[in-house]
């Protein structure tokens, strides 16, 4: 569908532009300003150039946090996307089951993030939490406040519990948009369930999966409240992800300059990954005609 060419459409976008300009551009500029200065207090600041960038880039704790973050986000995507798609496939197409599963799926999404952390502290407690007691009851020693591996399992489990429903909801929306004729044609062509998934459902879900992967990547890369409440970044620094480290730096130690430099690097990394994902996913399966269907 060819769109109308009309630059007056800018007037419709203007409110969004202004609003986001206030809430994004001005703070971003400020962060850049902070990143090149040493700030002692109101009106007391010294230009230090790229000092903070040099410091942050050489900070091994940041390198560790970045690696941890990449592993975490990768793990989360690897689990949540296939699981979410599988759930969407299992959901009924019509009837009362649709409303029930939609409502139940959406519940974890509606819980404030620090409450999520709180729930999981309780839920995983080896003495009074359901799952904690269960795991220990199976004879597996499990203690997430002291064992780094257990802490990781807990955080990933929580993240999967919390966000897989979002992927499932998006994938479900994508599935419902496929006209019945496709499934009928597949039956007539004698396609197996796997072939139907591979050649009809998966390609038709591409659009929503782009959104799902991007949203999940961004949000898991920026994750803060849930693991912070649950583990406080520990034991040791084993679950200190980038945002947790950043907040420690900015709020805990009040090192504004390094925190700002850190933020900019952080932002650039997310931007780079998101751009690459966006471009790559747009093109998968469309072959020589990119941009035909967004």
């Amino acid at each position, binding site marked *: 569908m060819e769109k109308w060419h009309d630059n007056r459409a800018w007037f419709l976008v203007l409110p969004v532009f202004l609003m986001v300009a206030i809430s994004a551009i001005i703070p971003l500029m400020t962060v850049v300003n902070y990143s090149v200065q040493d700030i002692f207090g109101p009106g007391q600041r010294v230009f230090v150039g790229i000092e903070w960038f040099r410091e942050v880039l050489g900070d091994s704790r940041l390198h560790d946090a970045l690696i941890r973050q990449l592993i975490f986000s990768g793990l989360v995507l690897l689990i949540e996307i296939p699981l979410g798609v599988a759930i969407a496939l299992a959901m009924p197409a019509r009837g009362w089951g649709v409303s029930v599963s939609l409502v139940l799926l959406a519940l974890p999404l509606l819980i404030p993030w620090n409450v999520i952390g709180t729930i999981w502290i309780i839920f995983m407690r080896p003495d009074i939490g359901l799952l904690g007691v269960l795991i220990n009851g199976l004879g597996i020693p499990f203690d997430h406040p002291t064992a780094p591996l257990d802490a990781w399992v807990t955080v990933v489990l929580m993240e999967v519990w919390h966000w897989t429903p979002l992927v499932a909801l998006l994938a479900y929306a994508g599935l419902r948009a496929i*006209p019945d*004729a*496709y499934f*009928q*044609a597949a*039956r*007539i*062509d*004698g*396609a*197996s369930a796997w*072939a139907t998934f591979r*050649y*009809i459902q998966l*390609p*038709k879900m591409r659009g929503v999966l782009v959104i799902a992967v991007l949203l999940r990547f961004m949000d898991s890369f920026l994750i803060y409240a849930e693991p912070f409440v649950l583990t406080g970044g520990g034991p040791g620094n084993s679950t200190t992800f980038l945002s947790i480290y950043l907040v420690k730096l900015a709020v805990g130690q009040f090192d504004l300059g390094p925190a700002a430099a850190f933020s900019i690097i952080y932002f650039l990394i997310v931007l780079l990954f998101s751009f690459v994902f966006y471009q790559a996913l747009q093109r998968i*399966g*469309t*072959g*020589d*005609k990119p941009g*035909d269907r967004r």
Partner: protein
Amino acid sequence: MARIHLKNIAHSYEDKPRAEADFALREMDHVWQDGGAYALLGPSGCGKTTLLNVISGLIQPSRGQVFFDDQDVTNLSTQQRNIAQVFQFPVIYDTMTVFDNLAFPLRNRGFDSESVRQRVHEIAETLELTADLNRRALGLSADAKQKISLGRGLVRSDVAAILFDEPLTVIDPHLKWQLRRKLKEIHERFKLTLIYVTHDQNEALTLADQVVVMHEGQLLQAGTPQDLFETPQHTFVGYFIGSPGMNFMPCALEGDAAIVEGQRIPLGQATLAKASGIGGALEIGIRPQFLRLSAQREESGVPVTIAAVEDLGNYKIVTTRLGERSLKVKLPEDEAVPSEHGYLRFPREWTRLYADSQLVG
């Protein structure tokens, strides 16, 4: 290739249908002869697609059985029935090339790659798709996509029948004509049983040897285009086929004539013979083409007033009034139309009598 027998089929989308109105398909018994070209004609929502899906096995009918030749296939899946079906909107596999699209049904059935290749090329040749075989199907035009859907049906040499569900809806008018001719050609070449669903009577009449008219889940009449035109079995068929549709007027019987608005309209002997003792709501019906209009009173002419004249190029439609009723008359372009009053003559051989919408004679 097979003869398809729908034995006492009825279908409802509800689990526990109560009233007649709950049925998308009312009970019917119909045989589709092997190698016939059928058009299934009816307005939107009359159950055409449901009937098609019952044949292809996408829907299990609530009642009755489906036979292919002498085999009961009611409980067989779509795959096992070997049916090809082409849908209203082209269904293609986006990520595949045209070749892979055409090969898909064969590969699913485990054919070896050499015979797949041979068969795909053969079909692509017939459909003039050879040049596009290595292109991605997604980027093609709507008619090429529809040809691919068709090709996927034809590529299996053993299909019992090929079903079309308004396949030309999204095709440009000038390409429609070409594709329709292609269909006709394919039908003659492969001698397939072909069932073609449409709501467009021109398409139905040009494509099919036999036309089946459906209305509100009922199969009203099956016959050649000529049958449907000359002796509609049901008032709906008369009204739906032909342009403009048949004229119908409530009437009473008296002696050898029907009385409409106090005027006598004589009926034929054959009609009268069947009409004796018939009850129910009576109507007479006549095609606008068969009415005679003149300025002077003739024998058995009925006085009417002229309400409107539409000139449609090579013919005219005259709307006349007989009391409360209006009748359309189709006249050749060069025939003079009386100015205000005229007389209508109803030729006996074309005047039909209906009781409760069903043809009496």
